[in-house]
């Protein structure tokens, strides 16, 4: 009992005590001093990174809830991992209610900033960059929350990722806004995730701008309810430089938006221009898989009210040139759907109803009988495609106290 009372008193003291600021500055032993601060921080504390360049030799990690790591600005405080000798990422967060803001991470050997199993993880006003430009040897992801919930990515710039600049995987309740992704293979990718709002971002000079994917064989599967709106998805023209084997290596250079195997995806009010392969691609997952609960088809997808410029003049996917010739004209239609409908989900006796509402036509349907069956394509073009109204997912609401964290 005495211990309990002491414990309670301790907890009260801890919560009543003012949050401490742990100041770290660049210079010799930055690795040890910064990592020590990340270990010493208590819930509510701020690890304050003074302006300057931190030369780091190993990954950093944070595993304390409620900590804010704050720099002096994404051009002022630079964590450089050029000399990194170990770890799969620059900074790893494995705790909840963490805010990372106002600093840059450069030249990590693997991923830039990863958050795993984190609730209320906020990335704000950050820059993650591979300074040598797009290269296959750059790390895979710039910001990489995975298996997390209540994810905020706001005013983040990522350049040079050899997979996705901004990548959210196997997570729930996600907002990606006001951010810039350029010179990555994929600009922004939401994968195997539920309830995401991707809005007011700029995705440019990537191989593909915005990807909404669902892959089989993962602990979290069945991605759904994603809204992609008010983004500028323009001039995605960097030749795909992803190492082969990765799913994004299959993204055609010059793709604006690509939806693969997801449901309830709404793409609206975006500017989509200057993407040589296609403005919007709606496709099935085509690789073999052995997971009976997986649905490889995009379904219940809405594409409406986008400002579609010139796209699709140089389709970079297999058979694209032939298709362009067959259709005649300067470019492919802005929306391209593989047209696969005959999939019977586990536990059903009939193929499910696949609804596509693509009003920013014309729409090219490839009329494939099965995912990836390009040799049996039966293409057709229609002014638009409207399988009826599809309810828009509710806007994503992050916990109210998340906005106050770290400010």
């Amino acid at each position: 009992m005495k211990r309990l009372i002491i414990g309670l008193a301790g907890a009260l003291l801890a919560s009543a005590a003012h949050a401490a600021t742990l100041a770290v500055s660049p210079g010799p032993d930055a690795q040890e001093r910064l990592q020590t601060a990340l270990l010493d921080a208590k819930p509510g504390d701020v690890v304050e990174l003074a302006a300057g360049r931190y030369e780091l030799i190993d990954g950093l990690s944070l595993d304390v809830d409620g900590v804010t790591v704050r720099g002096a600005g994404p051009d002022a405080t630079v964590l450089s991992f050029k000399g990194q000798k170990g770890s799969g990422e620059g900074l790893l967060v494995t705790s909840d209610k963490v805010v990372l803001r106002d600093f840059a991470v450069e030249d990590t050997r693997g991923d830039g900033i990863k958050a795993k199993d984190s609730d209320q993880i906020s990335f704000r006003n950050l820059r993650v960059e591979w300074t040598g430009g797009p290269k296959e040897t750059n790390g895979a992801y710039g910001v990489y929350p995975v298996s997390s919930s209540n994810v905020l990515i706001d005013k983040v710039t990522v350049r040079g990722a050899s997979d996705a600049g901004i990548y959210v995987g196997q997570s729930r309740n996600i907002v990606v806004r006001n951010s810039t992704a350029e010179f990555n293979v994929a600009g922004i990718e939401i994968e195997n995730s539920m309830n995401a709002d991707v809005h007011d971002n700029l995705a440019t000079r990537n191989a593909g701008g915005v990807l909404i994917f669902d892959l089989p064989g993962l602990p979290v599967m069945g991605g759904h309810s994603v809204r992609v709106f008010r983004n500028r998805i323009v001039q995605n023209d960097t030749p795909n430089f992803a190492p082969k084997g990765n799913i994004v290596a299959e993204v055609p250079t010059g793709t604006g938006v690509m939806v693969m195997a997801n449901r309830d995806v709404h793409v609206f009010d975006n500017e989509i221009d200057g993407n040589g392969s296609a403005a919007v691609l709606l496709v099935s997952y085509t690789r073999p898989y052995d997971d009976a609960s997986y649905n490889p088809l995009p379904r219940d997808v809405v594409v409406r009210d986008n400002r579609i410029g010139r796209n699709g003049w140089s389709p970079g996917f297999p058979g694209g040139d032939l298709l362009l010739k067959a259709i005649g004209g300067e470019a492919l239609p802005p929306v391209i759907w593989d047209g696969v409908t005959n999939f019977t989900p586990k536990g059903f006796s009939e193929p499910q109803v696949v609804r596509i509402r693509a009003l920013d036509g014309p729409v090219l349907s490839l009329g494939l009988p099965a995912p990836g069956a390009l040799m049996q394509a039966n293409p057709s073009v229609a002014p638009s495609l409207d399988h009826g109204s599809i309810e828009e997912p509710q806007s994503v609401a992050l916990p109210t106290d998340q906005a106050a964290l770290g400010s």
Partner: protein
Amino acid sequence: MRRALAGLACAAALLAGGTAPAPAHVSGKALLAERPALNISAYGLFDAAGRPAAELVPFAPATPLFSDYAEKQRWFYLPPGTRIRYTPQGPLDFPVGAALVKTFAYPADLRRPNEAVRKLETRLLIHRPDGWVALAYVWNEDGTEAVLKRAGAWIETGFVDAKGARRSVDYRVPNANQCKECHSRDGVMAPLGPSARNLNAAFAYPERTENQLARLARLGLLEGAPSPQAAPRTPVWDDPAETLEARTRGYLDANCGHCHSPTGIADNSGLNLNLEETRPHALGIGKAPVAAGRGSGGLAVSIAPGRPDESILVHRMASTEPGVMMPELGRSLTHEEGLALIRAWIAAMPGPD
């Protein structure tokens, strides 16, 4: 060479002097103190000559994690009057107050493992009332004291390998969070080595070689254990008497399965290499990478049956590049013998043609 001489001189002095240092006694109080000790000597784990306290019980897992060819010595400590409870899966159930102690060291020459040994670090896992805590202590040059390094450390060192070649190592001491990366099961810190199946193997005790589970049960340190025949068992990776399949699965379990399991930090990859996994796809056979990035090496699948050179598993085990190599923590060198085992296993799998 100078270090070797110093070591010998030290040993000689001990012999000549005839006054052995006072035996060490483990301080259970120090182990459970609110703040970890800054110096390892506070725990009374070793005497002045570096010999373990009598309360420390040595053990070794059937198949160890590869740690850059470092020699590892392991012990556990139990508070007086307590014992370990047997659990068939996961780590054995150690009482609060127990500690696991592991020292990493390099002999100057791996062919003479007992000579000119330099201790690098000793890691402690202490079972506190609120859970397990990991601490790493880095030894001084003389091996007389080790200091707490919570933020980790890098040590440049070297050794002569089994073939007589000089090797240099950028040896890395993990920081406290990195300990957790491997040691967490569903986010909770836990021991890895002392599980029933890892201790269901022989150990060369000073007086004789004996099965560890059987011995611990016989000495009353472990309760509820079945006979070794009835307990699960991790195959010994380098025992030629075991099948190739068993040796490989034992190796993958010890070297990959702590993260690559449904309760490990790499669960999001969908690749499970723990001993319990049986689904071919989850084991990597024909499995496309998910978040490997350049780790894929331009290869399509984790394991291409019959084709080790086309298997990402082999590529990442062979690599020493951060961002590519696996495991991503705990090594800077390639484990040639382990890699050869995995290659042989994949080569022996029936391929598509």
